[in-house]
């Protein structure tokens, strides 16, 4: 992976970063949002915020992808919170609680069925660590930057997740 600073010093613009990390960010967002359109919107918002920060000199000190993932996580958290508040309101509950429509998407449906089965034994953060490790192939340090954890914290989460999965081997076979 190339750091944003490195790109900037070589005279490359933010566009290079955009082209380099768009797909990784899209995969991450799709895995959590489950809707292609929502994932596209989110990725667009992440790059918009990232561009604004980069333009104002608040870009990442190191790698660009963990920084972009951190922005994506914050937007996701904000959206979930707003959604919870909307669901709590009696009038808006039916609108906000709509489940994504996966009919006709057998492949995607199968992935999320499996991902939900993992949720029965793993916490959200444990699943996220494994996803970042095996989907995007990030190092523990990079995962830590994205999730706001120490490297040891990431290792601990992954260790516990793997230990739990050892007790449920049927989930990985």
């Amino acid at each position, binding site marked *: 992976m190339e750091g944003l600073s490195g790109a900037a010093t070589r005279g490359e613009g933010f566009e290079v970063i955009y082209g380099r990390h768009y797909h990784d960010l899209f995969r991450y967002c799709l895995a959590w949002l489950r809707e292609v359109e929502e994932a596209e919107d989110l990725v667009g918002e992440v790059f918009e915020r990232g561009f604004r920060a980069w333009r104002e000199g608040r870009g990442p000190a190191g790698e660009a992808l963990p920084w972009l993932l951190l922005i994506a996580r914050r937007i996701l958290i904000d959206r979930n919170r707003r959604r919870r508040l909307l669901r709590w309101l009696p009038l808006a509950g039916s609108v906000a609680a709509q489940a994504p429509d996966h009919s006709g998407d057998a492949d995607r449906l199968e992935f999320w069925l499996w991902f939900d089965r993992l949720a029965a034994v793993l916490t959200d953060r444990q699943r996220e660590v494994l996803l970042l*490790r095996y989907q995007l192939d990030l190092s523990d340090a990079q995962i830590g930057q994205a999730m706001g954890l120490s490297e040891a914290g990431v290792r601990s989460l992954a260790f516990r997740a793997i230990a739990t999965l050892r007790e449920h081997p049927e989930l990985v076979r």
Partner: protein
Amino acid sequence: MNDRRELDAFEQEVRAAFRSHLAALEGYVPARPPEIAWSERDLLRGRVLEREARWITPRRRHRSTVSQLAAALGAVAAVAAFALVANLALRAVQPGPAASERPSAALSVIPSAAASGLPSVAPSSSSFVLEAYEIASFGSHWLTALAPGYASNAYVIDSTATADLVERVSLVDGERATVIMRGQPDLLTSVVVGRPRLLAPGGCLLVMDDLNQIWEWCTPDGVSGSLSQAHFAQAGEAKVEITAFTTWPAQSPEDGYHQMTYILAVEPGRGQLVRYPLFERPDAVATDYLAEPRDLSGVEAICSVDGAVFLLDRGRVVRFVDGRETDWQPAAPQAGAAPQYDLMSVGLAGEHSLYLYDSANLRVVVLSATDGSLLGTYGAWGEGWTGGPAGMFVAMGRNPAVMGQTVIFDLQEGLDPASLDVPVLYWIAQGRLWGAALPDDTQATTSLPVPPPTPTPSDTPPPSGSLATPTTSLPVPPPTPTPADTPPPSG
């Protein structure tokens, strides 16, 4: 990119499972990113070169209605007198610019207290009366719990019947926001939050509701955050009474090596402290912490320092290590009546101390968590303390004494000492969040603050030279005149 060690066979299997399942999503990933028209001028604009001085105008110190009225009348009188004198002077000397054309005087005002930092505000003595500064007001609402939060924030439980929520309060400017409310559902499980009852700090804020459900509020930046339910064995068991809980870091009993965080909850019904792993898999089981059950019906608070567990039991502090009570004895301050502790809080990180509110003597006592020795005593009466606090904690923060003043905070010329973080005691009372800077010297002295016979009413302005003005001398409030104060009759 991945610099990890070799994966064992099972980990490789996990990785392969993830990759094969994730491959199902690849068909939805666009072949190329959408085209965007980037503005090169924007991209090359670069950093902001000029840094402007920031002007911080925090909230004013809380003042009672009477003193506010007196101050307002005084200000009006002063302005009128000044205008009269200035008018006469201008007529007498020469015409000058009108008042409206002059630059604002506030821009150059640095009060002496702010410019000199903490020492001028807080005398270097442990016999010091804490001067309360209001940070946020909740009106007539009933605040029942307080806990420190991430990024200069605090959390309070508002137990007013129409509210029943947890609010975040900024310790810098008093801004408030609701983070958890009764009836709010969990996004994943649809379990609904009950009535918030207890708070415990940790990596994330933990909130226990009236159904013994523990909710975890995690925030990466102190502002936005996510809510999830933590696994807890007694969740949903409304018949099981939990009177206090805290987080307790300890080594894992399985391998004796990994550091784990546990929830320790006081269950008086069984006379036990329930120990339950936080951030653990759902099939984890609760265990008992105490080696022997004991009467816990009078326990009001629990906290842990350096692995030891402290209980506030019927006004006295008891220390436990490995589930057994130790011979740790808290030192009693030399002055005043026998202490009656109502609140207990952990000191600053690395300080290894406990802060206790002594309602019998209206003071805050600081004890060493290691050997029970007395580290300091602060007077706690008057404005901000009426009725006694319902929760308190100590944290590094902006000195509340400089609130209400204009402080220059110029990044180019250096930091103003008044803007640096100092140890601050925060507490809730009378529907408000209060703060008071602690002096940097916490050595125990023999001259301890003695509270007045009756606490000073908050509406009464203090007499000159009394407790409201911090001094380096012993701040003993003047009691009612005694015969010794009056001259003996002649003859």
